[in-house]
């Protein structure tokens, strides 16, 4: 279970990076990328996925 970021739509604002409770998001090359192994979909930490809740572009931070 993991979320992913659709690179072509990402504005590179980086809000997801510092909201992620699992330190799973990093800026790589042109876009922010969610590491599958680290992503917990915020289970146990928050009710909603932080990255998807803060992302300013609709349908850009979505279930992988």
């Amino acid at each position, binding site marked *: 279970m993991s979320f992913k970021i659709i690179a072509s*739509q990402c*504005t*590179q*604002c*980086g*809000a997801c990076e*510092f*909201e992620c409770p699992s330190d799973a998001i990093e800026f790589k090359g042109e876009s922010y990328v969610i590491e599958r192994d680290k992503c917990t979909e915020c289970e146990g930490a*928050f*009710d*909603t996925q*932080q990255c998807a*809740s*803060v992302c*300013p*572009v609709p349908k850009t931070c979505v279930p992988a």
Partner: protein
Amino acid sequence: MPAPIVSLEALTSTTTFDQLLATEKSAGCTSPSCGSSEKPDDLDPVVWERIKDHPCFSEEAHHYFARMHVAVAPACNVQCNYCNRKYDCANESRPGVVSEKLTPDQALRKVIAVANEVPQLSVLGIAGPGDACYDWKKTKATFERVAREIPDVKLCISTNGLALPDRVAELADMNVDHVTITINMVDPEVGAKIYPWIFHGHRRYTGIEAARILHERQMLGLEMLSARGILTKINSVVIPAVNDEHLIEVNKWVKERGAFLHNVMPLISDPAHGTHYGLTGQRGPNATELKALQDRLEGGAKLMRHCRQCRADAVGLIGEDDGQEFTLDRIPTEVTYDASKREAYREVVAHERRDHMAARSKAIGMLKAAGSGRSLLVAVATKGGGRVNDHFGHAKEFQIYEASPRGITFVGHRKVEQYCLGGWGEKATLAAIIAALGGIDIVLCAKIGDCPKDQLADAGIRATDAYGHDYIETAVSALYAAELGVQPLAATA
């Protein structure tokens, strides 16, 4: 040393920098205005000291001092219907638009490069895209680095206010003395039409609940800033039929909570920008509607009328933007701060401003004494320094002044396309300029050709270059006197 990226001649107000400095050195105490104050009469001296170099907080300062914005904090916690986060274009001039996002280290390099070349630089702002209080780590890192290298640059931020209450103590610790909060409503019902969602306390809120939380946080943040004596400017976007009437209420609320200045600015809306308002056909107010609203707000929280809604990476005097001269690829990798130009410029300005203030008081005194009920709307072509010093064909904007028995007040600006490019006047451009100058009685400029002058006259607008290089107020009062047939003031240099 590398060649200056921007020539000083282009940046200084009336003449070349060296000439200005020479005038300053030689003038000594011979100036008739020596010893008079450079402070406007109606301002508390303590407040004046804090805003006199800040072009966004003082209309008077914006003739002399420059700001620069660095886009270091792109993350945002509020979605506004007038903002599209995807947008990025070097030709666009409006808030939130930026061509390159910077890391705090890159921002420091850019600030030093600008400070070395633009002596007018007095303010560093973080004004989007994103929210400086929400993307706080980057804001803080940038300010700490810059304050270490250039301690006398004023630091300021713009924020939507949602995360502001969490940052007020640290802002005060870092000597951030000027904060701008964008407040578009004090009624969540109105807010729900402007903000589709906010992100707060680890969750997304929508609708009236989102607007209510934002409103409460904005008021709390403003009160906390006022309690610490930090000067706060409120920006409100005028959205016709959504919040235009409501801004009268907003003005009352923010005045009660200690706001220093209220800046109502027109919604910029175009389908090509891809914003919600742009795509749904929500229009912005026209110049007449904006001025009518500003006039109704007079007497409440003090209004800012000289805002140009600049880009989030703007550099230079307000109304000008040399940001494209200072993109990262044009800045050397190693830069060392050299304070000499900024220091010399400050000396010149202190002298020039005393002189300007004296001329201004005299001009305003003349108007009040004339005792006529008439008012006159004057458009001025200026390159800065508070003087009539730009050619009609070179002006990218006209500053609008109203002369009446109450005095001479700056009431706004009108942006135009340059009429004269490469030595030739463009017919179509002139028509657009004449339209933009609707309602203006007289145009003042340093130089104007017969052809545009005649066409302006046909449209009922007189234009003259007779007051070229005078102080704006001196020129306006002389015009006013001429209109009324009373003895004009001798123009002072």
